[in-house]
Structure formats: structure tokens, C-alpha cells
């Protein structure tokens, strides 16, 4: 295989972003040996950086360090990406508070680059200091508002502490930043469901379905797949809770979202769609369970 095609192939890992670190490591580590003897073209360096991260992911510290050394020799130790890589190696090999102090110092130096600050938050979370991590992340997002990953992480942090309404707020910022992502809507709907805000959850599940079907000409003839199945389940759960409120429970919506008028029809449609999803070859085994659950009102 020629070097350029293999580089191209390795670059697809970055584009598609699968977590196939071992595979990447096997394919990319020969590159590391070639670095010294031949004159390599500059496209190889991002791959080497990626290789170091993949090596860290599978615990091959030796490869990561060699890759870091090569990068530091070629690009210089001043490059933020090289510094960040060193921090990652430190996280893997040294005690976490050392890495934390390292990131803090670098974040002070590179105040325009949020990468170190983000790692600082990540290390704080690894150390179990959720409150500090949340506070740091909040001030990070106050400065770098448009950091989508940061908002999703904040929502996750809040959810992990059962602060569901705060998680919803963080997710609503994420939705503003990426309104095209139906997975964020799904997460929002599920968070609202967990928080007990049924009407809001129902609406958001329906938005997910609406978004996913937007390019399907006749959605009723097809069996829902992927994220839609989950969304239909969500619709069904919400509709059932709204139609038959559990004894003693109240269906009040914290967000004052109105309950849809055609709730019965939505419930029927959701039942239909979920059963369709379990009618294909792959779902047929579970169909009994599903239909039993459906008939048990």
C-alpha cells in the first residue's frame, strides 16, 4: 500500500469518528518507524497525533510517548496540541492532581484556547469532584458560549446529580447551538420525562419523530427504525401517563406546556407504530412482550 493511500484511509477514522483505537493502532503504528529514515510529508503529523490518542485509549503508553516525542521534535513543544497531548499522557501515567495542576497552568497561559480548560473540567470529573467540575464548566461556557460539547457535558453532569431542570436548561442551550440534531431533542425529551414534565417530554418526542420523518414521503408504510423507535416508545409512555395518571400522581407541567387535544389519537398512533417496529424479522421475537405490555392499560 502506498503511503498516501494509507494516510487517506487513516484520515477516515478522524472523519467518521468510530472508537476503534486498537484497529487504528495496528494500522498506524508502522508509520512511527518510518518517521526517522525517510522524508515524510506533512500529512502524517495529524495521524501521529491521533495515533498517540488511540494508544492512550488502549493503554499503550510506550507508543503514545514515542509519538509524542516525534511530534515534539518536529512541531515543537510550544504547540498547544503537543502540550495537550503531553497532558493526556500525564493523565494516563501520573496522579490526577498533577495533571490537573498542569492543565490549570496551561489554561492560564493559553486563555484563548478552551482545550486545556475543558481537560481541566474532565480531570475534575474523573477525580469525583463533580461540584468543582460543574462550576469550572459553567464559567467556561460563560466565556466560550458556542461550545456544544461543553453544554452536553454540563447537562450530563447535572443529570448525574439528579438536577433535571438544570440539565434541561443546559440542553436547551445545546439545542440552540445545534437545532438540527435530533439526538439532542431526544435527550431533552428523556430528561423532561425523568423530571416528570410529561407534556413537554411528549412534545419533544414528537419533534424527534417529525424531524426524522421529514424526508420520508410516506412514513406510515414504513417500519420505524433507529432513534424513531425510541421516540415512539417515549410518545407512548408519555401519552399513557397523561391519559391514565398514576394514582396520587399529578400531571402538572413545570414548563406549563399544554396537553395536546388529540391525545387519544396520538396514543393510538404510538401503539401502532411501536407494534410495527416489532413486526419485522428482527423484532418479531419481542413482539409478544410488547403487545402484552400494550394491552395492559
Amino acid at each position, binding site marked *: 500500500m502506498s503511503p498516501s493511500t494509507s494516510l487517506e484511509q487513516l484520515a477516515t477514522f478522524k472523519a467518521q469518528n468510530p472508537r476503534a483505537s486498537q484497529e487504528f493502532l495496528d494500522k498506524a503504528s508502522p508509520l512511527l518507524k518510518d518517521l526517522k529514515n525517510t522524508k515524510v510529508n506533512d500529512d502524517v503529523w495529524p495521524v501521529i497525533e491521533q495515533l498517540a490518542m488511540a494508544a492512550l485509549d488502549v493503554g499503550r503508553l510506550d507508543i503514545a510517548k514515542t509519538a509524542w516525542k516525534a511530534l515534539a521534535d518536529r512541531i515543537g513543544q510550544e504547540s498547544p496540541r503537543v502540550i495537550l497531548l503531553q497532558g493526556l499522557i500525564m493523565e494516563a501515567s501520573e496522579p490526577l492532581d498533577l495533571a490537573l495542576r498542569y492543565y490549570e497552568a496551561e489554561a492560564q497561559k*493559553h*486563555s*484563548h*484556547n478552551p482545550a486545556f480548560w475543558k481537560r481541566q473540567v474532565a480531570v475534575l470529573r474523573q477525580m469525583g469532584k463533580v461540584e468543582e467540575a460543574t462550576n469550572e464548566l459553567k464559567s467556561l461556557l*460563560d*466565556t*466560550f*458560549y*458556542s461550545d456544544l460539547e461543553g453544554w452536553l457535558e454540563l447537562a450530563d453532569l447535572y443529570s448525574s446529580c439528579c438536577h433535571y431542570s438544570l440539565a*434541561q*436548561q443546559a440542553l*436547551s*442551550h445545546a*439545542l*440552540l*447551538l445545534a*437545532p438540527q440534531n435530533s439526538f439532542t*431533542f431526544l435527550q431533552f425529551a428523556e430528561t423532561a420525562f425523568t423530571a416528570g414534565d410529561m407534556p*413537554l417530554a*411528549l*412534545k*419533544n418526542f*414528537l*419533534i424527534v*419523530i*417529525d424531524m426524522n*420523518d421529514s424526508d420520508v414521503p410516506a*412514513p*406510515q408504510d414504513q417500519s420505524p427504525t433507529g432513534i424513531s423507535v425510541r421516540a415512539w416508545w417515549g410518545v407512548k409512555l408519555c401519552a399513557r401517563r397523561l391519559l391514565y395518571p398514576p394514582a396520587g400522581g399529578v400531571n402538572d407541567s413545570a*414548563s*406549563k*406546556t399544554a396537553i*395536546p387535544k*388529540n391525545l387519544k*389519537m*396520538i396514543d*393510538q*398512533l404510538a401503539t401502532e*407504530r411501536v407494534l410495527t417496529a416489532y413486526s419485522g424479522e428482527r423484532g418479531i421475537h419481542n413482539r409478544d412482550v410488547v403487545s402484552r405490555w400494550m394491552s395492559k392499560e
Partner: protein
Amino acid sequence: MSSATSLYLDPSIRDWVLFPISLVMILVGVLRHYVLLLLQNKPKPQTRPQIREQRALTRSQLLRATAAQSPIAPPFYLTISQNLKQAFTDGVYLKDGPPAPKKVTKGGAESDEPEFPQPPSLFSDPSQMDNMMGQFKTQTVVMIPQMVIMGWVNFFFSGFVAIKLPFPLTLGFKPMMQRGISTPDMDTRWVSSLSWYFLNFFGLNGVYRLLLGNEDTGVDMQQMTGMPNMAAATPAVPQDYNKLFKQEKENLEFDEGFYKWIGEDVEDRVLRKYGKLPSV
């Protein structure tokens, strides 16, 4: 046209005038490139409050961008919108922090109006001064060698006819081609040494780019022409964020009127799509 044919150029003029001028100019250009690289100080990284101030507007812009088809439910939208409006009014995002309320004015009357920082002026900010010093240094490095070369050409080679162009030109080019020679009947194809200097001065940019690679040579056309154009030399005027925030606040109020949640009638849309409701 008899004068044109009867004129012969000594080859040593070519060797000792034409080539040296071009060579010296190219070498000085290359040297200047490296001196400029040395002089260029890296822009200071912005501090966090500065970044925060700069990016505060994106928050409301993002919110407003989707207002007509907003992905978030009314309570969330209104909370964000109102918080932003309040923050813009109070100047929370200003890099020096919200202004302290003024206690007592001169007349002894109490005023609730907090004092906002004055709009920044070009000369008050020390970092802006640094910028202007940098600009000035660059200008100097570009200008001084050019003046020295021009003086050198003028002193040693004034009145030299350096080259004959291989194509005819109209009389209009005479002042451009024969600077420093005042012979009214000479053909325009003859180029004087001083004009050759100017031709090089304007035309060598492409050669530098070839020699030094396509990177930013630090010598753009503006500087090549040597005219210190004040409009281009002026660094970006610092923004008065306080004023921008006040404007943005009004935009936010305006867009609250346009706000519509996409979830508002989503159940009807889905039902219609699945044929449960008659389509409109």
C-alpha cells in the same frame, strides 16, 4: 525615428547598471522579509474577560437566529431572553465587569444611573498603542531601504538609459519610462535607470512570492507602493461593546414577538403525516 536606430547601448551598462539595480532590489526585498518576520511580535492572547465580552453577542444572535422556529419551549426561551436583556442592561458581560452605581452626583442629587465606561478611544488603550507602534515599525522597515536605493540609483546612474523595451509604446508612457532624462524626441521604448528602479519597485511582488513561498510576506501591495495610507494603517477601531449590547437588547425584545416554538403544533403535523388527521 532615426534617433531610435542610431542609439546603441554599451553592454557594460547592462552588466553594471541594469542587473545590479534589479539584483539589489530583489536582495533587499528578501532581507526585508526576514527583518519583518523578526519584528512581528506575536499578538498577545486575549484574556478570558475579553473573549467573554467579544462573544457575548453570539449568545443573543444564536437565540434570535432560530426565534421564528425555535427549538426550545417558551419558558426556556423567555428565561434566556430575559436574562440576556438584563445582563446587557447591567453590563454584566463588559470586560471590566458591571459598572458600580454612582452614589452621589455633584449637585448632591442621587442618581441611579450607573456610570458606564467611556467608549474606548484609539489612543487610550495601551494594547492599541502597541499595535500602532508595530505598524509604524513595519512602515519604516519598508520605506527606509527603498529611499536608500532610490538615492543610490539617483546619485550614480541618473541620466542613464538602461534598457530598450522589445515593444513599442505610445507617448503617454514617456514620463513613466524616461524619468530623469529630458530628451523630448527619444523613443518611448528606451527606459531610464530611475524608471527601471520604479518598474522593479512595483513589479517585484510576484518575484518575492516565488522566492519566499506563498506565505504572508509581510509586504502587501499597500506597503509596496510605499504610500502610508492612513485608512489601511489604522488598526481596527475598538468596539464600544456597551453600545452594541444596548442595541442587541432591543433586537431581543423585537424577536420575542416573532418567537414560535416548533413543538407548538407538532402533534397535528405528525398525525397529519400519518394520515390520522385530514391534511390542510
